[in-house]
């Protein structure tokens, strides 16, 4: 057993224990760690903002040659967000917001159509290359059936009777298995983080393991 002598390791270990103290109940140690975390995250966000946005996208293109004067427009638009601090000019924020919403919506449409719809449908098609062995054929049919039944389950414009109702029932079976698997995967991801923290406490800090 060799306890760490590094102040950074001690700090990380104490903060870890402070956070875990919440398992007992909400207490001042947890709230202290929580506020340190919030403050650091905010400082980190501002540093990223400075390094990734302000310097390469505002300062360098504007003040270093070749000057890109067209960037004055987004900077002016961005500065309009500060209108929110005045009651009289708070409506100015609608302009950058409108640009933001329009740009986001415009970017999302082709992106979603391409990667979330067309690619997914394309990957689920029963093409001859998926029938190379018995197992791959069964898998391909199951993926196709799962996709088809799930889409039918989420189609609410038709009464659920006869074949349509049966397909929707199959859809809920696939959806439940999918949710269960996703849940299990999420739990395991959290558990692996917990194991990582325990390893840090027992190995890096206390030197027991």
């Amino acid at each position: 057993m060799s306890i760490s002598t590094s102040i950074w390791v001690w700090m990380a270990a104490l903060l870890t224990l402070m956070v875990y103290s919440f398992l007992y109940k909400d207490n001042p140690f947890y709230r202290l760690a929580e506020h340190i975390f919030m403050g650091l995250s905010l400082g980190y966000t501002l540093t990223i903002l400075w390094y990734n946005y302000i310097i390469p996208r505002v300062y360098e293109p504007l003040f270093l040659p070749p000057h890109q004067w067209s960037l004055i427009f987004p900077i002016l638009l961005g500065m309009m967000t500060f209108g929110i601090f005045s009651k009289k000019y708070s409506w100015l924020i609608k302009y950058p917001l409108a640009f933001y919403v329009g740009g986001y919506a415009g970017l999302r449409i082709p992106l979603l159509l391409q990667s979330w719809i067309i690619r997914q449908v394309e990957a689920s098609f029963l093409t001859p290359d998926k029938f190379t062995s018995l197992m791959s054929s069964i898998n391909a049919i199951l993926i196709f059936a799962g996709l088809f039944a799930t889409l039918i389950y989420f189609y609410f414009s038709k009464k659920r009777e006869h074949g349509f109702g049966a397909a929707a029932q199959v859809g809920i079976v696939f959806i439940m298995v999918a949710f269960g698997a996703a849940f299990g995967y999420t739990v395991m991801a959290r558990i692996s983080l917990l194991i990582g923290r325990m390893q840090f406490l027992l190995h890096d800090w206390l030197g027991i393991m």
Partner: protein
Amino acid sequence: MKKRVPLVITFVTGFIVIISFFIPHRPFGPLETDTLIWYSIILGFTLLIGVDSLVRLHVRQMRRRKAGWWYSIVFFAGFFYCLVIGIMSVIRTPNPFQPGTIFFYGYKTILIPLQSTMFALLAFFVASASYRAFRARTLEATLLLVAAVIVMIGRVPAGYKLWTRLPGIANWIFNVLQMGAMRGIMIGVALGAVAMSLRLILGIERTYLS
């Protein structure tokens, strides 16, 4: 002026971005890249608004001496510490995120442990929630329970010790049974998002301006 102009801006921006995707040639091609740059600059300003909101909240708490106001001092200590070493690292080195800088060291030894501990804390709450929720009352609930248990046990060495085929079954559930349903959900989400985006661009959805 206050309502029409923003609607026009939304329509023109959205329309130009869509057109530039389908016609990647001049004059539309570079417009998508330009819009993305403009977009990220405006995003930077909106982030500042978020920072201001949080700082104001804590200043108010300190002024009014609300219960637990001294936590706000801790908040500011963490905030200024990270900001100062961040800016110092930006000035001293070309990349503050490279290993060896004081900023990277603080990030690695304080922020990452706190972040992963916060997330790991959820493991306990998820476990207690699942204990209450996972009751095999119906066929659907049983399926959810069985799939979750197989995936959980199949992904740890104990699962392999229990039955050598368990990891394979867990992977099969994840890669085949889950795949079809997840693709269906993704397509449904995407169709909804496309419809909402069109509503925004065409000015049918205006709640963001109210």
